[in-house]
């Protein structure tokens, strides 16, 4: 099977190891991965702040890049939501652009969803003998209704000691520009999340979105909390090549 990787701009610039892990995991699962270097961003930052025209320009570029892709895999619940849920709405109902956007949306899958729902993967052969917990990112769980797939994959990791945290699906407080526009309340919400992470007794917090993890990690490092953040793809890539 061939898939196109949409790696997301945040991973591209800040967390390339997550992108590499995604490729490693997909290839381990027998998938042929292609990465089109013309790709940039899905348009979400502008869209979420109300700059819809600016967002649409970027979206048109995104659609042009991924128009022919059979499967588009995204290691981010948030960007997958933008593509599947919001992008079609940027074009008038009944227009050909709308139809194209809807088709691209249908072919797009978040990484864990793709691995479990399309490939039927139980395990990637990863081994990680550590205590981990999982943070449901808001878009993944409430817009895309993906709850069980990441957990199934975590349970498939050998040696992992999975500890569900209290309020695992409550927001971490990031919210894109919200994190810098309302920093105090964003951080206050995050502090509570960090508290639940600590109480789970885990040494690693896993999520499908680097945006949440970046925020959580920033808070934990500031407060010297001895817990590491890790993207799901990095966990699933804990096997020897």
């Amino acid at each position: 099977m061939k898939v196109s990787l949409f790696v997301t701009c945040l991973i591209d610039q800040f967390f390339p190891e997550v992108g590499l892990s995604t490729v490693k995991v997909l290839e381990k699962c027998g998938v042929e991965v292609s990465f089109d270097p013309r790709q940039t961003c899905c348009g979400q930052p502008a869209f979420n702040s109300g700059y819809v025209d600016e967002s649409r320009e970027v979206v048109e570029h995104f659609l042009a890049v991924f128009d022919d892709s059979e499967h588009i895999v995204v290691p981010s619940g948030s960007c997958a939501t933008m593509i599947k849920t919001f992008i079609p709405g940027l074009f008038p109902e009944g227009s050909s652009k709308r139809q194209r956007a809807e088709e691209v949306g249908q072919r797009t899958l978040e990484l864990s969803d793709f691995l479990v729902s399309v490939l039927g993967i139980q395990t990637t052969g990863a081994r990680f003998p550590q205590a981990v917990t999982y943070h449901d990112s808001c878009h993944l769980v409430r817009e895309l209704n993906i709850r069980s797939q990441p957990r199934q994959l975590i349970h498939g990791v050998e040696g992992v000691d999975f500890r569900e945290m209290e309020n695992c699906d409550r927001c971490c407080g990031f919210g894109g520009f919200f994190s810098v526009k309302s920093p105090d309340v964003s951080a206050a919400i995050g502090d509570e999340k960090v508290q639940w992470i600590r109480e789970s007794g885990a040494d690693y917090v896993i999520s499908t979105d680097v945006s949440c993890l970046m925020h959580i990690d920033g808070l934990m490092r500031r407060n010297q909390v001895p817990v590491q953040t890790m993207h799901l793809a990095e966990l699933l890539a804990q096997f020897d090549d």
Partner: protein
Amino acid sequence: MINTAKINRNVEAALADRQLQRNLCSTLGKSVRMRDDSVAEVPNWEELSRYARDVKLHTLSRLDHYLAMLEEKITAQGGKVIWAETGQEAVQFIVDLARQRKIGKLVKSKSMLSEEIHLNSMLGRAQIESIETDLGEYIVQLAGETPSHLLAPALHKSQKEIADLFVRNLGMTPSGDVHEITSTARRVLREHFLSAPIGVTGVNFGVAETGTIVLVENEGNARLSVSVPQIHIALMGIEKVIPRTRDLAVFLKVLIRSATGQKMTSYISCLNGPRRPEELTGPDEFYLVLVDNGRSKILADRFLRQTLSCIRCGACQNICPVYQRIGGHAYESTYQGPIGAILTPQLTSLAAAPEHAFASSLCGACQEVCPVQIEIPHILLKLREQAQREKKTKASQLSLERLVMGGWALVMCSPRLYVVFSRWTRRLWRWVGDIRGLGRFLTPLTHWYKHREIPELAARSFRELYRSREE
């Protein structure tokens, strides 16, 4: 840039208020649990919720028809319907009626609409005393404050603060516990009930087919308000009409479980006009005041219209991570939390309440618990879009933020510019050495750095690493 400074200032104060933080923490957590447990008991919750949503959407699409039907039925029962385009008109009707009858006092049960139109302060200006009779509202009124939650107006106050208030204002013994506070309120308010000639209430549902006004409560103060005084005035937003009595079975179930986690509240009053001649007690006159006050404007947009489906259960406030941290007062509006964030700017204008739509992390927890499935996060996004569009039309407001967004779009539309830009940013990052040091002086990095460490920009981007891996 949409200025969230006002809310942010309030946030800072709210976060520093340890008493408020304690109160929010203990009460909202409990409310969320009670709602979740109660909903989990109902196997066909989703079906009930969808039914409620569809009834609302249907009614809103034929609102003129159902309002006319409601009016006809109420008139036939001997009630009178008043149409008020603005809050001012609604208030004026009450003032005129009270003056005409030489009435100087009225008792009032809980009504968010009355808060929206500032009824108490307007009546006060007309020398008419308005006594809140819901315990929470009464507490807030005694303290000279405004409600901070749809259902629990005094949620921001501790028992100790309330006891102090009662000692100061009502001469309660200082050791007063919750029961003492409650019985003091019962005694004082009972006197007001027996002496006030007008009772004002809100309306939870107005049933068009029968002209029935439905009030949902636990305390019994709404029952007293519609039973003891000679005149009952009900204030109703035009969106509160529903077509049939049978719909009540569903609405009450989803409303009450979402609101308090109860199976049923202590009292549901279904009122059909004033007392009949052969009935011994009850009001002689019944007035229903139908208030628009910005609602028909919301109705005109097919997508945003669903905002008016709200049945005021407060579940979205209880679950909202932002509301949980800052409480209701920080929003500086009648309607607070997620529903307030979408309702306030639409009832007034985006220019009047620009920051509401932005004070959210868009986490979607509100929509998940909404008993009538209002798509709150999507509405917030729509309002953000409208807010930016409105700003754009004002040329003078060409902001730095818009310029940055324009530049961002330019870069993101061109893979070549994207690569150049990322390369130069990376270079700059290295030159500066410790960008986190510089970050303190660079908005929005300043805001990020205030509470969080700044992530490292990777030495090489994914695309660079991927290419070298392929080679």
